[in-house]
């Protein structure tokens, strides 16, 4: 569980996070959503320590991250996996070496054991046989999966994903979402995902934090969101007429007003 209270962060005069508090739950996919510039990336970077918040506390399972020394943070970070927007794979290394890197750095396992673990995670992300390929030789979706494999290779307790679906087609996006959701349950991790992908919100949103202008605007899950009357959230999530219709349909389904054939009951 990751709990943060009253997080504030400014860049010069601009206040980007304005007292955000929330709890990211274990074994659930916790989504941070919001329009561009709403502060979600800054929030995630504060949570992993890439930015220092000006005020507020971040608690990782009872341990105060904001008060930790650099050495304590380094130890905690070995329990954190992160999938970056651009995957952030090391260009000069093969897929296998990219995934093996955290094992080389932090474990004393024999080479064979490391390769076995790499193969396990590659199988988990459906990339068996891609060991010897370089990042430049694989597609965007595959890069994301390699990124996930590298993030989970040390069995982390916390997984952070920054825009996991950016630049991917809808089908691949769904596969990545499904994979992240499955891995979260399987490893019982606290997964925090930054996204503005509507599909992700509706499919894997166990715990959603909607941000607007650096503030917490709404929280709930993918079911609650259909019934939300928050204007900003509705404008953001159900931006098009098509999505509005989909929302209304889901609402009717949830209210039991749709029959088995998908027709509205009279």
């Amino acid at each position, binding site marked *: 569980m990751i709990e943060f209270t009253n997080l504030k962060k400014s860049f010069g005069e601009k206040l980007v996070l304005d007292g955000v508090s929330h709890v990211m739950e274990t074994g659930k996919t916790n989504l941070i959503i919001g329009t561009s510039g709403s502060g979600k990336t800054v929030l995630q970077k504060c949570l992993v320590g890439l930015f220092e918040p000006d005020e507020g506390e971040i608690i990782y399972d009872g341990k105060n991250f904001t008060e930790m020394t650099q050495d304590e943070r*380094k130890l905690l970070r070995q329990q*954190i996996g*992160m999938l970056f927007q*651009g995957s*952030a794979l*090391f260009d000069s290394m093969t897929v296998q070496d990219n995934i093996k890197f955290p094992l*080389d*750095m932090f474990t004393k396992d024999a080479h064979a054991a490391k390769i076995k673990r790499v193969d396990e995670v590659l199988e988990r992300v459906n990339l068996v046989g891609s060991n010897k390929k370089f990042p430049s030789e694989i597609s965007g979706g595959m890069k994301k999966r390699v990124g996930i494999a590298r993030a989970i290779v040390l069995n982390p307790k916390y997984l952070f994903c920054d825009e996991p679906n950016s630049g991917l087609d809808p089908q691949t996006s769904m596969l990545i979402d499904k994979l992240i959701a499955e891995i979260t349950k399987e490893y019982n991790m606290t997964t925090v995902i930054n996204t503005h992908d509507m599909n992700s919100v509706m499919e894997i949103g166990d715990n959603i934090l909607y941000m607007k202008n650096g503030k917490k605007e709404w929280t709930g899950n993918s079911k609650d969101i259909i019934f939300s009357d928050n204007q900003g959230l509705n404008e953001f999530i159900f931006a098009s007429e098509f999505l509005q219709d989909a929302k209304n349909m889901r609402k009717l389904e949830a209210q039991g007003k749709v029959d088995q054939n998908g027709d509205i009951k009279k």
Partner: protein
Amino acid sequence: MNFLSQFGKYILMLKGMFSKPENAKLYWKEFMHQCAEIGVGSLGIVVLISVFMGAVSTVQTSYQLVSPLISKSAIAQIVRDTVILEFAPTLVCIVLAGVIGSKIASELGNMRVSEQIDALEIMGINTKTYLVMPKIVASLITIPMLVVLAMGLGIYGGRLAGSAAGILPVEEFDRGLMENFMPYNVTFALIKAYTFAFIISTISAFFGYYVSGGSLEIGRSSTKSVVVSCVMILLADYALAALLL
């Protein structure tokens, strides 16, 4: 004010490099990789420049020494001292500032922009120790080696040009090399080489490590690192000469 804040950031980067490596074996591997990249990677250009600068020194010195009172072997002495004192350490390091400096700055800059540095930080790795330190140590080891090589090759190039152009025979050149040789000159050149190696590696690492933006900024910071390194080399060259000679 901006200079002071940048300088402070530079000092903090250097200070931040000193931490216990998470895995000594991987750090050693990275250090050896950098030695190969910086040392072996620059070998070709250093050999080429050194031989030609020695050759040109011989030809030009001979052109300027028209007095019949000065022995031809003086050409060898002048070439030797010029190459050891100035050409090998300063000229080679200015070229290396372009070759190595831009390479370090663009490599780190690309890693920063593509979030690879963030990925390493998230894993719990001190990126200053893992990425910057091996580059600086490798530069401090290989650049003086390249400078020593440049000294030898420069003098050899001068010797070669002297005999090829019929300026002075090889025997006379060799005799001139032995006359009035001051070993301190080599020490001075090495002091310069270490100073310049530090300047090249730390400045280019600084500009690369703190790059922000996209590919355009990587190019800009790479150019900036070369310009600043060259200016600092020239300033340090003058300061060292004034202090130590």
